[in-house]
């Protein structure tokens, strides 16, 4: 059995913490550790930045205008 390592635990729950799906007590525990640990805090801020970065990177390619026109043409003609 390995000893409990709060940083390893923090890493394991990081994504659920960011998704806000931890229970109140798990969340409080994660926040307490982040307050105390600069190593994990830095990685938490990085994770937040990465999520934003991924979102921006994939949004950079807009929907082609021609596709929009084609979709509008699929509408049922008015009687």
């Amino acid at each position, binding site marked *: 059995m390995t000893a409990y390592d709060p940083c390893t635990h923090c890493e394991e729950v990081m994504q659920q913490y960011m998704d806000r799906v931890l229970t109140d007590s798990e969340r409080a525990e994660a926040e307490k550790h982040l307050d105390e640990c600069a190593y994990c805090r830095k990685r938490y801020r990085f994770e937040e930045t990465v999520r934003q970065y*991924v979102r921006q990177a994939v949004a950079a390619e807009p929907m082609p205008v021609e596709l929009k026109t084609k979709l509008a043409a699929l509408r049922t003609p008015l009687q």
Partner: protein
Amino acid sequence: MSETTREPDARQIATEARDRVRFEEEALALSDQVYRVARHLVGSREEAEDLVQETYARAFRSWRSFQPGTNLRAWLLRILTNLNIDRGRRQQRRPDEQPLEEGDYFLYNKLEAAGDGDTDEDRVVERLSQNDVVAALSEVPHDFRDVVVLVDIGDFTYSDAAQILDIPIGTVMSRLHRGRRILKQAMAEQAVGT
């Protein structure tokens, strides 16, 4: 048949036409978001365009089966993912056979180690290019990528993603967890090599 029995029919037709027009307008207003998700669910831009067109054609045909007041974007994505499955692109290794991925801190640690000692998280992330991110996402196996794209790019809840993909919510959570790790591993490889 008397006028009094025909009148409600005319009203009904007019109401239905109005509902249909409203449905189509609301669906079209979501097309950018639907395309953005589709673009990263499939391999190429052409494939995404075809899939989105097919989705809208089917949605407009079966608009009556949409329940007003429920999530139209999720409904459209459900059609899209079903069409995508029908196309038979689901040939891949089972999740159990995927290689084990690194932990959540892997990407940061890798980028930090490759840098010149600068540990500022904003500057560390700048070592990734947009192309790195897009290329890395395309490397994530479909089952994992679908969930990552829906939740992290499409902003769907776990529950919406479960309904769209027709999988249990626990599976959404486990695939999301692994999918994000695989993505970050691929981003690290794109940015600094293995």
